[in-house]
């Protein structure tokens, strides 16, 4: 289909921006949930993402059908999250120096997970087969069905998360803890088990992001670092701990990245975003949607 050049470029930027934003959203929502409730920066988040991709790769080699690998990958990442939380984080919750302790603990967890992947799968790049093959072109923009699957899955998951956090008993409890820990305790909310729910949920979402993107991009054992870094940018941009802000920020950053790449040049995308973040942090230190320390989830 022939379309004017300007429209073509716009479409290209929009498609890859929404695709990026969807994956950033899945990644960042987990980071922001953990930040909001546990007040902890989870440096293992990237490792959980890549673990999702490798778990899918592993069970695929065992002959499982592709749709099923999604579930196993999400479950696998969630399980790793559970182990990290119960073994590493819960014991240091009462520790007065837990800010730095949790940074080191989650960094250690990410090194362990990455090394285990390296031992099991080796260092060469891998790719997952798409759920649905093929695609179509509009102008020169190739829109793959897999890309649409990624966008659709991300949007559905983000909506489900939002409903979970606003309607369900445990979701309300997570938001309550992140807004006022003492009051949450007085409502009878058990803190430590709720933290486990938060970690398992966000690990599962990271794993889902990994398996979704694993069929579009190549990945290696250390491939979780860049997505985690982008998710951190999104989390900070959205106002740490605010779920709605994070979802908006994910798509804004995703679109900004692709618009910079299409209109200014691919090498400008990342520096441009970081420059923008620095400027924004100077003007709005609490993030685009952050209203200060009081504003949470």
């Amino acid at each position, binding site marked *: 289909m022939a379309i004017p050049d300007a429209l073509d470029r716009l479409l290209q930027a929009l498609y890859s921006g929404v695709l990026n934003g969807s994956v950033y959203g899945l990644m960042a929502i987990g980071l922001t949930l953990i930040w909001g409730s546990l007040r902890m920066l989870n440096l293992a988040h990237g490792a959980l993402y890549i673990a999702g991709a490798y778990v899918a790769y592993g069970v695929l080699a065992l002959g499982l059908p592709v749709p099923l690998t999604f579930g196993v990958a999400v479950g696998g990442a969630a399980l790793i999250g559970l182990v990290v939380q119960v073994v590493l984080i819960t014991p240091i919750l009462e520790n007065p120096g837990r800010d730095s302790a949790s940074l080191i603990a989650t960094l250690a967890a990410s090194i362990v997970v990455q090394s285990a992947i390296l031992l099991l799968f080796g260092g060469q790049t891998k790719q997952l087969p798409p759920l649905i093959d093929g695609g179509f072109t509009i102008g020169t923009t190739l829109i793959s069905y897999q890309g649409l699957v990624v966008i659709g899955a991300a949007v559905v998951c983000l909506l489900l998360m939002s409903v979970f956090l606003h309607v369900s008993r445990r979701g309300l409890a997570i938001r309550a803890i992140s807004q006022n820990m003492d009051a*949450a*305790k007085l409502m009878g909310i058990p803190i430590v088990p709720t933290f486990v729910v938060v970690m398992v949920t966000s690990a599962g979402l990271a794993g889902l992001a990994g398996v979704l993107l694993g069929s579009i991009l190549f990945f290696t054992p250390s491939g979780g670092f860049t997505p985690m870094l982008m998710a951190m940018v999104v989390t900070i941009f959205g106002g740490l701990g605010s779920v709605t802000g994070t979802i908006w920020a994910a798509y804004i950053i995703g679109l900004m990245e692709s618009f910079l790449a299409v209109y200014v040049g691919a090498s400008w995308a990342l520096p441009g975003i970081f420059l923008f973040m620095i400027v924004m942090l100077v003007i709005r230190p609490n993030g685009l949607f952050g209203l200060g320390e*009081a504003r949470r989830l």
Partner: protein
Amino acid sequence: MLTVANLEAGYGGSQVLHSVSLHVGAGETVVVLGPNGHGKTTLLRAISGLIRLTAGRVELDGVDLTHLPTEQIVAAGVVHIPQGDLPFSEMSVLENLLVGAYRPAAWSERRERLERVFQLFPLLAERKRQLARSLSGGERRMLALGRGLMSSARLLMIDEPSLGLAPLVIEQVYETIHDIKRSGLAILLVDENAEHVAGLADRMYLLEAGVLVREGPAAELLRDEALLAAYLG
């Protein structure tokens, strides 16, 4: 119902409460009266497990609550409405109330409880979609009380409900506590102003420097003129 025996607690190395013993009977309203900074809030925080006891025992109907985590003390039916309300400020009024019904026993009856709370506080029903941080001080106090009533409380512990409110609003708040009392719930209220609790309290304790110095029927203590002079705020 609630029995506190020889309770000692404090913060860090400094002891605030010294061998505090008190009891609240079923359906009874007990007021602990004392000046600011003498340990009233610490007492409630210790009973609800927010701070650890260094000595003593807390029981509800013979069941030992000492050293249980807060969520289990709440599950047992001791519900603490803290000073300064601590609302979940980025949640709506409705969401705040629903969090109050977090324990499974309360959650399954949340609709009926919500209806009862809205009957008691029609204002909260009007504002249920509003964010808690947009409420006035008096409305927040109502929300804190309503949130406590959403739980399956058997004993409500209320920390100085008049704090920071205008006189007219204070009157409304204590009227509401009267309504709660009439519903048959046991209440343990701490306050610094004797005038506020006259007519509400069945029995009173005086707390001074972390020690309970007097105990008696409210009517009797409120006739004591020296006492009134000290606690009329």
